[in-house]
């Protein structure tokens, strides 16, 4: 087990707060964009950090380390029993009933362009999704993405290239790309 850097709770809290939004985005990507499950996973990650089960060892940046912990926790969560998943679904349904964020989720789904993009994204293999999210969404280098995913740089690059190609192929026929293209063209013609 790693020794870990001794950090007081205040410092850890401050760092986690700084990366909370990015962490939530990554958690969503790790759990097929399920908001209820993402919240649960993020809580488990914070709990692991509080309990000292996950300790920052200072080898990588804090964000890279946090993202690795989130990924690991999400993988563990996926492996849980069927009954646990059922319970989580119940919890999710309850939280959606109580949670006003539910309307935001519907808002996202209402955006046709984005929902098509999300569909295309979730159709990709997990590794490709992960690397694309880390590079395009989190603005990380492929090397950092490889570190988070626990794969070699070469492997991450391959996933990145394949993912990009597949995403382009699946989006090219859809309106998401077409609309964007036509909008871009009209914008450019409108400009003097």
């Amino acid at each position: 087990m790693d020794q870990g850097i001794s950090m007081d709770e205040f410092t850890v809290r401050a760092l986690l707060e700084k990366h909370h939004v990015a962490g939530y985005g990554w958690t969503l990507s790790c759990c097929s964009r399920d908001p209820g499950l993402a919240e649960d996973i993020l809580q488990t990650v914070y709990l692991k950090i509080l309990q000292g089960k996950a300790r920052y060892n200072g080898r990588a940046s804090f964000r890279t380390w946090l993202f690795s912990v989130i990924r690991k926790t999400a993988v563990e969560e996926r492996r849980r029993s069927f009954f646990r998943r059922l319970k989580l679904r119940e919890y999710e349904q309850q939280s959606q009933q109580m949670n006003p964020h539910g309307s935001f989720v519907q808002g996202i789904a209402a955006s046709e362009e984005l929902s098509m993009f999300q569909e295309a994204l979730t159709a990709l293999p997990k590794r490709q999704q992960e690397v694309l999210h880390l590079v395009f969404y989190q603005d990380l280098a492929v090397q950092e993405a490889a570190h988070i995913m626990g794969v070699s740089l070469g492997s991450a690059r391959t996933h990145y290239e394949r993912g990009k190609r597949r995403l382009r192929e699946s989006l090219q026929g859809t309106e998401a790309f077409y609309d964007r293209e036509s909008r871009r063209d009209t914008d450019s013609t409108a400009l003097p």
Partner: protein
Amino acid sequence: MTENHDETQIRQLFRELKRQEERITPSFSKNWGEARSRHKPVRPFQRYLNVATGVAVALVLIMTLPLFRSEFVRRPRHDLPKVYSITEWEPLTDFLLEFPGDQLLTAVPQLDYLTLETGRFPSEQNPQSSGSAL
């Protein structure tokens, strides 16, 4: 459509997705607070108590193990049930296999000398006539 152009498109879509998801991100204080409420720090005293209990149980086991072993070794041999060899052993229900007239089949009948001589059975012989003959 160039590859760079596609990449820009993908990047823009990801940015939009990020913008949308940032709006639904739950507050940090809520998540942290819930994680804290689930966290039960182990008190040092409780930890010592757990360790002490474990050590006590281990000691008791270590101390009682030789007693059990010596008890087993000291047990006298005659306490052990007698083990019959296969030739000596008889099943408890063996009598059920016996026939009622089994003895008649296995035993040879004894005929007395007089019967052999006279050719008559004793019940057929007349004591008076036999007496007069003598």
